């Protein structure tokens, strides 16, 4: 809520177009408001989930889970609850430092009761553009000041380790200002508010903060070593050994099983095991029985169990077409995020079987063993599961990533695809280094991100297709496109160093040694199962043309260049990493994980930060537009508008101002580079 208020203020300011000092003044009240808000939170002991619980009329099970959750499920919550009374920065200082005008605004404490009664209105003022007028600002002020700020906002703001040194009052002031600049994004709705930024920066406090942030940045570690977590997480992907015949190692195996941070289980409604990421039937059968019992207990009451929490472990259940998919996570993901992961696993099952077939199997015999029809799909499910456990920006954002190419270069590739298109082609894609280069598609069909996720998972996260070598002809159902039938996908990997082949009519063959990051693949999807040779011909034409017009070299060069470092995007930034999602294009861009997030564990921690931000910004009740999060290890910012979502992370000593400023730069960069980092429209026929 605080964030939203801030944005509102900003909008108001923009509308005013007032000089800097004035603009800065109105904000202060908000800061103050925030602080009381925190206090309120602490006393009430609520957090996002708690709030949800109160408001949500959801099922009993769900509510239960939430209550539990609020106490101890995710580490975030744990911390927040533990430190519920967050250190309140001395408000008076703020007041002094800022203008007396602000205090006047604050006086509107009568507004509190109002807020309580309509907490949502304040929060839901999501659309910045609507709030440009002064009145809007005033309305929002009282709400903020009232200290009634919804527990949500407070929780989200401080939910990560209240104890962090950053929450000092000075930081707070800075942070408020920091929001102003975020609105300065040309061309957007918010652009109306543009001038404010420049003014804000001239504020001495701002400058001080910025300088401070920059000085401290270099020194600190964003992600201090956490040996225990690291050790556990490294083990996460190891295969469990089987229980031996005598059962002597049963205990050890069970320990190993329960110590896994994340499990995915799939069972049929009749209780037959279908899939488990870790462990074989000997280990999982008991648990599967328990889970089935719990689920069917609620089912009998005509109620659907969606999630529950035990200790720090969250269980999320998705029931679909006679299947129960269960995620068990200790990684602090939200219900919604886990549910999205389960949906992806379900999509993979549909992709193997199609929906009608799945329905037939279970309507004929509810006790059918689905493992047989699914055989061969386990590696795909496991690859998906591991991707989720490692943390995957495409999954989190439900968006895809494109290879950055000049617009004109991409146009040439698009044209090539259009020119070589054959009659039975549905979708044609060129993919390089796991990123999309170009798409050709019929006018009335777009590609569903979840379908692409399945395809990318199959091609890049498992070995089945790649190591088969040569060309592949794969029947698959793309559930996002049509979950009732199969399409046929032609896949050919072009090794980046395969230039010398093409001897006579030698077909491409995959050399086992080439680097994952340099793979270029041509995917041609057709509804006709007999069209392999047609697709093969098209592939030959496409590759020949791309080689002739130089596009192939450009693609390979772009792949080798890799993602830009964050400092290439915003020189001298405090940012360590960011995710920028363009909502219209359903695509996202991000910089390289290097140098700050080398290795599995560092990446997982980064992704956990993103998960937290994402969960808070997407919480159904909060409607946050800007969310700022301070923790011991990092400070981070989430910012959503109708056009984009931006998540960025900086080191713990970076100032809010610097963070916000960098966030703005990222948005500017994305605007400027839009046609390079995203595929806009693609080649349509």
């Amino acid at each position, binding site marked *: 809520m605080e964030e939203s208020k801030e944005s509102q203020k900003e909008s108001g300011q923009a509308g005013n177009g007032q000089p800097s000092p004035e603009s800065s003044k109105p904000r202060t009240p908000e800061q103050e408001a925030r602080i009381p808000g925190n206090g309120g939170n602490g006393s009430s002991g609520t957090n996002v989930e708690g709030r949800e619980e109160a408001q949500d009329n959801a099922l009993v099970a769900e509510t239960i889970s939430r209550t539990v959750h609020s106490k101890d499920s995710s580490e975030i919550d744990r911390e927040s609850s533990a430190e519920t009374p967050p250190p309140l920065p001395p408000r008076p200082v703020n007041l002094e430092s800022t203008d007396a005008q602000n205090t006047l605004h604050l006086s509107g404490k009568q507004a509190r009761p109002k807020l309580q009664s309509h907490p949502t209105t304040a929060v839901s003022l999501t659309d910045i553009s609507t709030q440009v007028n002064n009145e809007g600002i005033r309305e929002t002020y009282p709400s903020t000041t009232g200290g009634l700020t919804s527990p949500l906002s407070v929780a989200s703001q401080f939910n990560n380790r209240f104890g962090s040194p950053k929450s000092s009052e000075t930081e707070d002031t800075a942070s408020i200002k920091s929001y102003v600049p975020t609105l300065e994004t040309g061309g957007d709705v918010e652009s109306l508010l543009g001038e404010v930024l420049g003014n804000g920066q001239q504020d001495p406090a701002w400058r001080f903060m910025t300088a401070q942030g920059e000085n401290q940045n270099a020194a600190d570690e964003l992600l201090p070593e956490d040996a225990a977590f690291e050790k556990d997480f490294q083990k996460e992907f190891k295969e469990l050994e089987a229980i031996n015949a005598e059962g002597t190692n049963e205990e050890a195996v069970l320990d190993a099983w329960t110590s896994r941070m994340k499990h995915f289980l799939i069972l049929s409604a009749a209780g037959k095991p279908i899939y488990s990421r870790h462990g074989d039937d000997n280990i999982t059968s008991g648990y599967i029985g328990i889970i089935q019992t719990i689920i069917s207990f609620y089912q009998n009451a005509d109620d659907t169990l969606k999630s529950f929490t035990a200790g720090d472990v969250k269980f999320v259940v998705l029931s679909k077409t006679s299947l129960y998919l269960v995620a068990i996570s200790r990684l602090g993901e939200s219900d919604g995020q886990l549910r999205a992961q389960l949906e992806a696993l379900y999509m993979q099952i549909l992709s193997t079987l199609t929906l009608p077939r799945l329905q037939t199997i279970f309507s004929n015999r509810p006790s059918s063993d689905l493992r047989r029809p699914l055989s061969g799909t*386990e590696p795909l499910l496991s690859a998906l599961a591991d991707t989720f456990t490692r943390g995957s920006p495409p999954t989190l954002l439900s968006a895809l990533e494109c290879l950055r190419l000049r617009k004109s270069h991409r146009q040439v590739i698009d044209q090539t695809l259009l020119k070589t298109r054959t009659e039975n082609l549905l979708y044609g894609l060129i993919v390089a280094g796991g990123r999309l280069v170009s798409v050709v598609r019929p006018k009335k069909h777009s590609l569903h991100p979840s379908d692409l996720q399945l395809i990318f998972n199959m091609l890049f996260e498992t070995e089945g297709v790649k190591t*088969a070598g040569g060309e592949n002809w794969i029947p698959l159902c793309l559930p996002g496109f049509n979950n009732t039938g199969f399409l046929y996908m032609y896949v050919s990997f072009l090794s980046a160093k395969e230039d010398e082949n093409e001897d006579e009519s030698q077909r491409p063959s995959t050399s086992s040694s080439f680097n994952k990051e340099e793979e270029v693949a041509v995917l041609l999807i057709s509804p006709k*199962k007999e069209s392999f040779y047609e697709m093969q011909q098209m592939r030959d034409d496409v590759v020949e043309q791309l080689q002739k017009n130089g596009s192939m070299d450009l693609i390979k060069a772009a792949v080798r260049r890799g993602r830009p470092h964050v400092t290439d995007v915003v020189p001298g930034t405090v940012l360590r990493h960011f995710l920028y999602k363009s909502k219209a294009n359903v695509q996202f861009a991000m910089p390289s994980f290097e140098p700050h997030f080398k290795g599995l564990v560092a990446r997982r921690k980064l992704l956990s930060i993103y998960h937290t931000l994402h969960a808070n910004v997407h919480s159904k009740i909060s409607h946050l537009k800007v969310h700022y999060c301070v923790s011991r290890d990092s400070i981070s910012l989430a910012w959503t508008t109708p056009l984009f979502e931006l998540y960025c992370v900086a080191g713990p000593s970076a100032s809010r101002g610097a963070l916000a400023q960098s966030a703005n730069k990222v948005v500017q960069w994305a605007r400027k580079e839009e046609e390079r980092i995203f595929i806009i429209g693609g080649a349509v026929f």
Partner: protein
Amino acid sequence: MADSRGSAAPKPSSSVKLVLLGESAVGKSSLVLRFVNNDFQENKEPTIGAAFLTQKCNLPTRTIKFEIWDTAGQERFASLAPMYYRNAQSALVVYDLTKPTSLTKAKHWVAELQRQASPGIVIALVGNKLDLTNETSSSTGASANFAGSEDAAGESEENHAEADADADADDEETHDARKISTAEGKAYADEEGLLFFETSAKTGTNVTDVFTAIANAIPEHTLKGGRGAAAAAQGALGARGDADPSRVNLNGPRKDVGAKEGCAC
């Protein structure tokens, strides 16, 4: 052999379509990978759909270019198989020496091919995973004794095979995971008029031999641009015509396992 085409007038070259069929996890893809790339991967993940690869095989008188369809073994892909074997001139039906059900499945495939595929199709029956048996003969060429395996080194299935509990326990060299005797496979192959080999994709034993034998067994007249040479008997038998016509000749000059004789791979 491999270099012969550069020397004199180019030999006639023709392409031969070959399809691999068999239960999942018997090692079809591994055989192809060995033949095409001379490579082997432990724990290879299952093929999805089908893979299309090519490889040349140089015979004394001609060059055969194999266009290989490596199909997935899972039942749900079975309905696609006709697409792959419809115009195929040759087929490799593979089973797992350590898994009796896989021979049953192989027999089904043979029957289907004989019923549905083009009449002159050359079919080779291949028992794979010879490395899991402990036959000690080092000779790969001894006819009627299709040995030449290396002792199982404790590595079990190439694919995530659901090996029998027995087979799993057979990790020691002294144990033999073989469940289907050479004689059993051979008898069936003879009965149906198939080429017969026992191979190890892991060690390479007999792998190129299979393809060479198929190349030799393809009737000349079915090859486009093929020129009369050592006439291969109609039907799938009698590679090179110098052996007992009812038997596959395994006496080729095979010396070491990884050798690529006869093939330009």
